[in-house]
């Protein structure tokens, strides 16, 4: 985006008007739909305006990692599908997909949203492995916030599968009614700074103008559980504080959609 086009974005932000008419600190409409994939143990579709992301949870059994013999395994992966944006390519996850996955993972893991101690089948030998996969369907900006929300929603929707006598997952049977041990509900709000202006829920056009962004994971108690700074502009401590405050204020808007 050239300087003149960016100045135009700034002019609108200075009047608290976004390109789609929203205010700076306003989200597009957020919606969550559960159980969108019957193949998964849990799944959800999240829409933020025109942006659409789905997430699915596969529950398997596995051997625990050697350093955490008494904890279940948790993994978050994201696929930015070429179906969702003409710029996305096939092949292994690129930088953006990796960041989306890792930042979503951090909010869920570090808030201890899933109580991994309750995922042990046989200490040191067999544990539950929870695999969350996030797939973008239509990218009209702000995939990160949509991705984290979809991951959490899919976890909420998930039910344990049945086990056979030999302790293997019985995928041929209906799953049980037992929910995953979901202890917390973290969501992520990405706050963007361009010039002197802060805003959230960027449209694709606005993403091109981003100087600095801060994704903040916020729990239902309002505590901060993960962060990721992006963009190449440096931030002052006061600016960071302001951005966290915005994220804490707006987190309930996302959680309300769950």
């Amino acid at each position, binding site marked *: 985006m050239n300087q003149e086009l960016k100045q135009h974005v700034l002019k609108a932000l200075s009047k608290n008007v976004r390109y789609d008419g929203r205010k700076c600190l306003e989200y597009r409409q957020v919606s969550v739909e559960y159980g*969108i*994939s*019957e*193949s*998964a143990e849990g*799944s959800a579709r999240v829409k933020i305006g*025109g942006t659409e992301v*789905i997430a*699915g*949870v*596969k529950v*398997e059994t596995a051997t625990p990692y050697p350093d955490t013999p008494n904890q279940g395994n948790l993994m978050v*992966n994201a*696929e930015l*599908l*070429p*179906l*969702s*944006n*003409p710029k996305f390519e*096939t*092949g*292994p*996850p690129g930088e953006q997909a990796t960041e989306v996955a890792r930042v979503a993972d951090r909010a869920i893991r570090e808030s201890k949203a899933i109580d991994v101690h309750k995922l042990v089948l046989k200490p040191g030998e067999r544990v539950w492995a929870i*695999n969350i*996969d996030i*797939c973008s*369907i*239509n*990218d*009209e900006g702000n995939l990160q916030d949509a991705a984290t929300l979809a991951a959490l929603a899919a976890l909420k929707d998930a039910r344990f599968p049945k086990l056979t006598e030999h302790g293997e*997952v019985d*995928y041929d049977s209906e799953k049980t009614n037992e929910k995953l041990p979901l202890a917390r509900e973290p969501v992520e709000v990405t706050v963007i700074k361009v010039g002197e202006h802060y805003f959230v829920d960027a449209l694709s056009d606005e993403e091109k103008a981003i100087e600095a962004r801060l994704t903040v994971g916020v729990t239902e108690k309002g505590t901060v559980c993960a962060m990721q700074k992006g963009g190449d502009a440096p931030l002052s401590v006061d600016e960071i504080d302001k951005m966290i405050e915005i994220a804490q204020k707006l987190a309930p808007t996302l959680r309300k959609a769950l």
Partner: protein
Amino acid sequence: MTYHKRFDGRGFDELRPMSAKVGIVPRADGSAMFKIGKTVAYAAVYGPRDLHPKFMQNPQTGILRINYNMMPFSGHGERVRPGGSRRSKEICMVMQNALLPALNLKEFPNAVVDVFVELPQTDAGTRCAGIMAASMALADAGLEMKDLVCAVAAGRVEDKIVLDLNYFEDSHEDGADVPVAVLPNSGKVTLLQMDGEMTREQIKEAITKAKEACEELYELQKKALKERFARE
């Protein structure tokens, strides 16, 4: 062995419940969803657009490129590892051959039409569902086509010829699976594969039944495409 009643209680020639919707990915140049039983396929078309790498370009015509992908949580059983497999590579190829006879890309030398087929949930019949969705998405993208393409699997379970096999039928040890794609106007077959043993008579019966079922599939595609552009 006699297959008296299908596992899910359907008639032997009965398709699973279906639905279709066009325009599901607003960013794409064309898109559609097709659902049959528990198998769901999304398809998005991008292009014609610039083709890289350059050595793939054809100065005589545009080319069609299909990318078939099962979402990691879409399989029966364990998580499907992302990234292509030998299976998905072959499916892309046969889907391309299934769709290409309907398409004319002569107006687009050196360009590519990309079709991305994604499956959020599966219960057998994914390549046929993918062709159903892709065919609608290509029409939605405004490309020159002389026909749509319809597809469904036929097959054998024990002594019976059945249509639209589900996972349990598809994986039944005494059986065979015959995915078929058809150009509905001419009745010509553009995709044909088979695994499992069948007699020549059974094969003919299976293909004929699949062709007949395509009428129903075609009506559904037609309705979904018209709904997309209908006047309010």
